[in-house]
């Protein structure tokens, strides 16, 4: 059976995607998330050693990113707390991008070309196609 085709986007999924994009729009937060993705869990001190940002500023961003669920703080003493990137919100953001990246116009044009080609092969007369509206 086809799945439910009704839109299921509640405020939640949209809020999650929006927070990911908001986080990524800031260069420091983007650098922190990129560093965690590339090299795995790290403390604020670790990140301060790799990024041109003070430890204090990084700690502040990490706390907020953790509150938003984009990173997770592993249990540990203060200053030893390691932060790990959470993939779930990123996957929600990817869904949003997948909708923007989906190209049906190209394949539909290719479908028309394919049908025109196969119709011409047996030596039939060329056809005139009308272009439908897009979107």
């Amino acid at each position: 059976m086809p799945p439910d085709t009704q839109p299921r986007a509640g405020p939640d999924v949209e809020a999650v995607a929006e927070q990911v994009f908001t986080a990524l729009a800031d260069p420091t937060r983007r650098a922190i998330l990129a560093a965690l993705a590339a090299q795995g869990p790290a403390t604020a001190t670790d990140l301060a050693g790799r990024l041109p940002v003070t430890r204090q500023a990084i700690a502040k961003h990490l706390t907020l990113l953790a509150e938003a669920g984009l990173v997770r703080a592993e249990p540990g003493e203060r200053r030893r707390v390691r932060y790990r990137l959470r993939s779930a919100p990123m996957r929600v953001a990817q869904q949003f991008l997948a909708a923007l990246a989906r190209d049906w116009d190209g394949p539909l044009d290719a479908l028309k070309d394919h049908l025109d080609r196969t119709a011409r092969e047996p030596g039939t007369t060329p056809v005139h196609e009308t272009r439908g509206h897009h979107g």
Partner: protein
Amino acid sequence: MGFPDRIERTVSIAHPPEKVWAALTTAEGLAAWFGNEAAIDLRPGGSARMRWDGGYRAEMRVERVEEPRVFGFTWPIYGLPEDDPRRTYVEFTLEPAGAGTRLTVVESGFAQLPEDVYRKAYGGNTEGWAKELGELAGYLDAA
């Protein structure tokens, strides 16, 4: 921001529905315009597979087969990891239009967030999460 759940296109094709149907529902047809290689078991619940040059491939599940009017399948959401259970539903509708066909394709489900995925992803703490997001939004707006 508006999370797009549904993508819809309608095109006029100067060939009858039977020809369009064959192009949409046979391995030969699909491989000629959609992918580079295709296989399909054309029945509801049947599986289909597409491959593109460059290595991308998609496993589809046939959902609706009403020749020559409706063909529907689900497939993974592009870009999500292979183990992600979310899928979008693609439905082609063919209507005769003169000597040709009016073809509509609708892909829906981009904005879905099934309960189980939601619980798994957010540890069941959806209320707290929404609240924290609100706080982050407030902070980011002020920053």
